[in-house]
């Protein structure tokens, strides 16, 4: 009885979300995709993260972020997309050009905001799941989430710069794309289970910034967003790491003085030790 009621409720909420999504999009230029969950979907996709708080201490080697949830559709229709985002930061990109036989940096191109971390997970390529407009609108790929601030140099294609940013960040594992069924031998990826249960595992590399992340889960059907949910994930320093960082940012003069004294002390100790030896 109870399960029947629950599924009925879910069905109602899903159809409500569909109705809402079907309303025509406002005319004019496409809205700039701020990294956000779809606020215009009526129902929340039932999802949670295993690690709501990740602590960074001196033995930190990176971490895994596990997002799990349920596709509320009883027949399991639709595709799940999971995105784990770090906060947007400014970035600068330069293209090398040849001048008098030397390879030098061209004019810098600034991004007013580019995700510091971005992992997108789906069962199959994103373009088969969501329409290009949805990908752009919800910032489902890192290039769509990055915003150029300055104009690119004459004759240069802005999308080249965006592609280069994504390529460089992917090499650092800061941007990750899983677009197929999870490989059972590897830990990262999206896995679907029976009953609409899904689990997404993202490797947060140690070089990813310490900040507040968010995990967004989306349910798409026939290219349209049905429902979504946003879950915050806090990555923060603890212990000595935290104390050092706090001192460096809040009492920078003392921190500098401490560094100088430590340097002099180290030099002094070394010269004494080695005189005796």
């Amino acid at each position, binding site marked *: 009885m109870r399960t029947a009621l629950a599924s009925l409720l879910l069905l109602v909420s899903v159809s409500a979300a569909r109705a809402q999504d079907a309303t025509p999009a406002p005319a004019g230029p496409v809205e700039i995709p701020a990294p956000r969950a779809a606020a215009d979907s009526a129902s929340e996709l039932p999802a949670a993260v295993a690690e709501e708080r990740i602590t960074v201490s001196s033995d930190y080697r990176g971490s895994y972020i596990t997002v799990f949830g349920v596709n509320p559709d009883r027949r399991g229709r639709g595709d799940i997309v999971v995105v784990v985002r770090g906060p947007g930061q400014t970035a600068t990109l330069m293209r090398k050009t040849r001048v008098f036989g030397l390879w030098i940096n061209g004019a*810098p191109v600034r991004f007013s905001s580019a995700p510091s971390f971005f992992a997108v997970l789906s069962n199959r390529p994103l373009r088969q799941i969501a329409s290009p407009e949805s990908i752009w609108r919800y910032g489902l790929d890192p290039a769509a989430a990055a915003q150029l601030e300055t104009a690119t140099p004459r004759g240069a294609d802005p999308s080249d710069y965006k592609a280069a940013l994504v390529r460089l960040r992917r090499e650092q594992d800061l941007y990750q794309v899983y677009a197929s069924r999870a490989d059972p031998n590897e830990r990262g990826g999206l896995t679907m289970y029976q009953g609409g249960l899904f689990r997404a595992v993202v490797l947060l590399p140690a070089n990813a910034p310490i900040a507040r992340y968010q995990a967004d889960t989306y349910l798409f059907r026939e290219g349209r967003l049905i429902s979504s949910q946003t879950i915050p994930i806090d990555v923060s320093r603890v212990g000595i790491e935290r104390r050092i960082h706090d001192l*460096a940012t809040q009492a*920078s*003069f003392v921190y500098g003085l401490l560094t100088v004294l430590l340097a*002099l002390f180290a030099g002094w100790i070394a010269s004494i030790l080695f005189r005796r030896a």
Partner: protein
Amino acid sequence: MIYLPIAEMPVNVLLVLLVSGAVGFVSGLVGVGGGFIMTPALIFLGIPGPVAVATGASQIAATSFSGIMTQTRRKSVDWRMGALLSVGGILGSIAGVGLFQRLLNIGQLDLIISLLYLIFLASIGALMLIESLKVMRGHQQQASGMLHRPVKAVAHRLPFRLKFPRSGLYISVLPPLALGFCIGVLAAIMGVGGGFILIPAMIYLLRMPTTVVIGTSLFQVLIVACITIMLQATATQRIDLVLAAVLMLGGVIGAQFGARLGAGLKGEHLRALLGLILIVASLKFLWDLVIPPNEYFVLGAGML
């Protein structure tokens, strides 16, 4: 492996110790701060550039201080000359930080740094190598005579002359001040102590005896490094104390071994060695500028 709180990444402690020890060894041997090797080495290990530059200064301070303790016992520090150079150096580094920011804004900092390294390393290295090879072959008089006269004449003609008993000089205070200033500007832009330029300049421009040059340059490098630490700590907040501690440990130990070995070497051998190191390093910079890059796009230091 240990996680660095400011660089926000883990590093292999043994690897960093090894690198800083090697850099310290070279610095103790020939009396340079080692920053011009250390900063690129840290960046190669994956440390973000601003953190490498800022933190490198603390290792330079530790290494040069331990070097000075050893040199003081040998009475090979000209304190008066060192103080003059330091005053010029502090003014120069303040001017240099402003220039650094300007170059960063127009995106040409990399080019200027590479070209500066290329020009200075190659020309100074070649000069030292040629001179010391001549000395080793016994043409000492000819070699020093050529470089000696014109500069000494200028230093003697300028006002504000001062006695430098340790160096056995009686010259104007203006050349050391100007030299210190230039080194300070270069040091701030290149993110190094500047010893590798200062030492040849003291030998060839100020005509100081080789025995005093190393200790005195260490003194100037120490003062400039301490100022740099304070500027970096308050302005950029990119000094990583954990990384600094590891670098210091490796650096000072290496420097002590280096200084010991250096005491047993002849001046001309020392100079030939430094000359060789500088030439090799300059070739690396030339290589990077001339060879077509694999990746045409470069990520700038976006945090600035």
